[in-house]
């Protein structure tokens, strides 16, 4: 291993590397075998037993190589809140977490609500082996009133619109947005929340909010908006993607909508699969997110929906906040946690042991997110551009937030012991392969 492959700020060119002896898993294309991969100028070459002349050999025995993981829900904070994250540090965090693609939300300051800002973000990400897809705002300034110039933004390569951070309050605006986006082959991502029902809340409304004296956000605040989305999707024929589903009632609505053939998709975050609202009992703001951690029945419903594909996307809702912002009183601190650098390891540690197969996990983390964004699927095959995540499934490590590449460290998983970690990524002709 040479150091040129482990520089986060300047990933090395994948000029001529020979990845030796890894288990290559690409279930949608029928691959699951131990093999060598030769990459020249970022493209997968015919497999050979021995390393071609001049190729740099990287011993990956005991490792897995999968198509590159994709995080469909990330906040990069730039422009506007560069103290919490920049596009560059967000890309580095993504690489460290094993992602070759992310979709970033538009709730920056100013919001990403025009083609110029979309192109600008993409330009900033160009030096990294991470595709940064922009989810543009639905409405100008995210103000919920006028639609953005959707056609122009779609021409700039965008396939999804969202006012995430908040819902599109007006049902009329939402219906028009869904209809218009549908015409363009794009879809709306909805942060499902009835803001009147959730107003003033800092955690799930439950036994725990009562015990802690914290104002609650009921599960129906989310589900009512999911129901609205289902009806609007059915009425308009357009597709709506429900962001970060957390409530049992939402899951039931999405499952029923899918059964009826309505174009609703859904995503789930690791924290809603692994934690419950009881975690708030220490008033640690690293457990404050929106939607909030829910009760055990909700957690179980999300897990079941994740397993059966009702929620087909695994994403992080990576929401960096500075130490100063998070180190405040619980009801004052902002919502959100970082997730890019723990997501893959949490999945390997906690999902595979609970009955989820590796192909199913890859379906949620590799294929479905790209499908929703109408992006081509990466394929581990000769002649294809190498778009890979390299995983050491046996690596045991302890989450140390200070070591994150993200500028922010607001994670609830500090100190967690995890097994399995991304060792690197190869994408866009670049490679990052780190030593532990």
């Amino acid at each position, binding site marked *: 291993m040479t150091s040129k492959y482990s520089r986060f700020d300047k990933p090395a060119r994948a000029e001529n590397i020979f990845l030796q002896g890894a288990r290559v898993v690409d279930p949608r294309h029928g691959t699951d075998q131990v093999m060598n991969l030769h990459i020249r100028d970022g493209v997968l070459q015919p497999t050979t037993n021995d390393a071609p002349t001049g190729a740099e050999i990287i011993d990956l025995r005991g490792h897995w190589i999968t198509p590159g993981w994709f995080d469909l829900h990330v906040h990069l904070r730039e422009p506007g809140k560069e103290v919490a994250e920049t596009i560059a540090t967000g890309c580095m965090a993504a690489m460290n977490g094993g992602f070759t693609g992310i979709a970033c939300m538009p709730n920056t300051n100013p919001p990403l609500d025009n083609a110029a800002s979309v192109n600008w973000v993409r330009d900033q990400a160009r030096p990294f082996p991470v595709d940064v897809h922009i989810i543009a705002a639905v409405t100008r300034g995210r103000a919920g009133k006028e639609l953005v110039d959707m056609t122009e933004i779609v021409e700039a390569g965008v396939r999804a619109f969202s006012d995430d951070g908040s819902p599109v309050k007006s049902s009329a605006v939402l219906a028009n947005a869904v209809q218009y986006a549908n015409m363009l082959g794009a879809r709306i991502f909805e942060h499902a929340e009835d803001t009147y029902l959730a107003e003033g809340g800092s955690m799930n409304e439950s036994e725990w909010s*009562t*015990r802690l*004296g914290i104002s609650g956000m009921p599960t129906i605040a989310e589900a009512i908006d999911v129901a609205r989305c289902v009806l609007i999707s059915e009425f308009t024929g357009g597709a709506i993607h429900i962001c970060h589903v957390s409530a049992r009632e939402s899951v039931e609505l999405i499952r029923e909508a899918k059964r009826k053939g309505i174009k609703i998709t859904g995503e789930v975050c690791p924290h809603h699969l692994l934690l419950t609202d009881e975690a708030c009992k220490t008033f640690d703001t690293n457990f404050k997110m929106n939607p909030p951690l829910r009760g055990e029945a909700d957690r179980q419903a999300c897990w079941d929906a994740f397993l059966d594909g009702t929620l087909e996307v695994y994403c992080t809702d990576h929401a960096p906040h500075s130490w100063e912002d998070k180190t405040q009183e*619980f*009801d004052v601190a902002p919502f959100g946690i970082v997730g890019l650098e723990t997501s893959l390891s949490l999945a390997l540690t906690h999902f595979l042991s609970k009955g989820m197969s590796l192909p199913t996990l890859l379906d949620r983390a590799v294929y479905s997110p790209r499908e929703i964004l109408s992006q081509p699927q990466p394929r581990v095959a000769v002649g294809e551009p190498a778009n890979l995540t390299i995983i050491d499934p046996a690596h045991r490590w302890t989450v140390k937030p200070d070591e994150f590449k993200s500028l922010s460290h607001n994670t609830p998983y500090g100190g967690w012991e995890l097994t399995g970690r991304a060792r690197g990524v190869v994408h866009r002709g670049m490679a990052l392969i780190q030593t532990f």
Partner: protein
Amino acid sequence: MLGLADYSAAEIQTILDTSLQMRDILNRPVKKVPTLRGVTVVNLFLENSTRTRTSFELAEKRLSADTLNFSASGSALSKGETMLDTALNIEAMKVDVVVMRHKSPGSPHFLARHLESIIINAGDGRHEHPTQGLLDMLTLRDKYGSLKGLRVALVGDILHSRVAMSNIIGLKKMGAEVIVCGPSTLIPRGIESMGVEITHSLDDAIRRADALNILRIQLERQTAGLFPSLREYHKYFGVTRARLEQASAPLTILHPGPMNRGVEITSDVADSEHSVILQQVTNGVAVRMAVLYLLAGGRAEPSA
């Protein structure tokens, strides 16, 4: 002391017993002892309070602590300083105890993670008000001798009440039964998991309880749509002498104050022979002296 949730029945018993000794001091002609001489206490009240702040301050002075009062208005907080920085600055001036009142639930827990000082929660949002819970328990124990088996009804805005939470936690630990009574919109979700009964009938609560702890109704709750009008509230949840007369035996009446006379309680109830509202106030000083003594007593310099 962040909340009664962290205390065992035996510890609560110790505090209540110690409070009796402190009350003896209050009844002496010279109401001051040197117990906390050399100990500095800052009363960090970041939310308005007269009763609790005065009570703590008096308790500190009775024990000869040096006291410092701090309020949010006119401080660096109003210039944008964070609560944590304010507290760290105060601690850097070498205080020993921080008594804090804050509108954010968990704020004393938050400070406790960053400060070395002893922190006493004097009310954090709608979470807990442990010394109020203790003084209510002391007042009831004075009257009945024991809390075990006693049935106490908390009446009014349970949802927004830190007093209700500390009462429920403390009374349950001491073996009392607790009924919460109020309009359904003022009863928080899942409160039955704390082992309390819920009723929306004041008459039912009065029939079954030994004591009523009546909580203040705030006008803004009505404007927030949690109940239709103060008039309707008073009609159905206001404690009046006529309603109390339905009880088979006289009920003890508590109220943490400040009272809205004519809303949640009528004057003839507040001032009746069964009202212990002013005893609560006296016991408040005694309880706070006990808490300060038990937590900070070891920090006092030896007497010269």
